[in-house]
């Protein structure tokens, strides 16, 4: 492999951008395909799209080039939680076990205290001050808004939708969510975007306690990650809703 190519690959990984290293076995020729590249003219375009979705590397046969190996690099999934609440306390170890990098944002310092959350990066600030300066949202990020408080939840929800987060969930009853949809519509969110918000949050397992709700939320995030329609999420990031 060319050293310059290796450096580029490592740069893409460090920046949490998906890419595929394409190696022709017969010739040893290699190139890097970025997720944001327009590959529509490439005979392997469909293969690339499918592999960005699945994250799986593998060998394919290309008529022109013979055997071609696609080494897929997609960032590890991340979970951004709005609200340092009881559910978030239960969610912290669950997310870690499931392999998610989790961070919590909550401006209420009484909630967002290191004593309550010793094991997870905590931002005791307004989401507006953290996103995207300290926490950038992308299509490999799940966002769960758990405060119930529009002042805290609304901004990150809008940013999560416009950033193409693969999962966007919000705590609250159907009634709460109906008024949320009204507010976010006024703020410029489209109907299609709002339909992506999972609310009431979590898979329906009759969760009652905060810990059970955390399990339901994690299950729903995994479901979206593995079975969801990430393919329909446009890349690169849309900037329409600033």
């Amino acid at each position, binding site marked *: *492999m060319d*050293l310059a190519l*290796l*450096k580029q690959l490592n740069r893409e990984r460090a920046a949490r951008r998906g890419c595929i290293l394409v190696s022709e*076995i017969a010739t*040893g020729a290699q190139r890097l395909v970025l997720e944001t590249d327009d590959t529509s003219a490439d005979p392997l375009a469909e293969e690339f799209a499918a592999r960005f979705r699945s994250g799986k*590397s*593998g*060998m394919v046969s290309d008529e022109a080039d013979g055997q071609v190996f696609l080494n897929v690099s997609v960032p590890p999934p991340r979970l951004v939680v709005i609200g340092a609440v009881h559910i978030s306390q239960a969610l912290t170890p669950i997310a870690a076990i499931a*392999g998610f990098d989790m961070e919590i944002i909550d401006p209420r310092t009484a909630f967002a205290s290191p004593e309550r959350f010793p094991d997870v990066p905590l931002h005791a600030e307004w989401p507006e001050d953290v996103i995207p300066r300290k926490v950038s949202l992308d299509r490999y990020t799940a966002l769960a808004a758990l405060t119930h408080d529009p002042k805290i939840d609304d901004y990150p929800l809008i940013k999560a939708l416009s950033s193409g987060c693969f999962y966007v969930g919000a705590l609250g009853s159907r009634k709460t969510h109906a008024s949320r949809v009204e507010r976010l519509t006024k703020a410029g969110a489209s109907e299609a975007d709002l339909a992506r918000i999972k609310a009431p949050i979590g898979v329906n397992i009759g969760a009652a306690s905060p810990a059970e709700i955390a399990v339901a939320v994690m299950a729903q995030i995994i479901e979206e990650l593995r079975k969801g329609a990430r393919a329909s999420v446009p890349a690169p990031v849309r900037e329409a809703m600033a």
Partner: protein
Amino acid sequence: MTSSTHYQSANHQALETVPDTLDVLAVAEGWRAAGRDVALATVMETWGSAPRPVGSHLVIDGEGNFEGSVSGGCVEGAVVGEALDVLENGKPRMLEFGVADETAWKVGLSCGGRIRVYVEKVD
């Protein structure tokens, strides 16, 4: 996230929270920057119960030092030997390992799987 619980439980706890190819490629770049000869081995195909998923890497330097893994430790020794050849002549090569009766106790995969490993020089 890795699909290889087999490997994780046996080896590096720390790898559970980091994508397991990330480090190896960073190591490869770091070694090159330090002026070392570097070969990169990649699992390209697996059949049966291979211990490491397709796309896993092993990085090898000219002294035979290595990081990462392409199996659960079964064939790394053989891959390192081949990598030293690749570093010398610069030509990539494809290796295949499986459980053949006569080699099962040498460099076979004890789990019964079969893997193809591509070895190339980073230059």
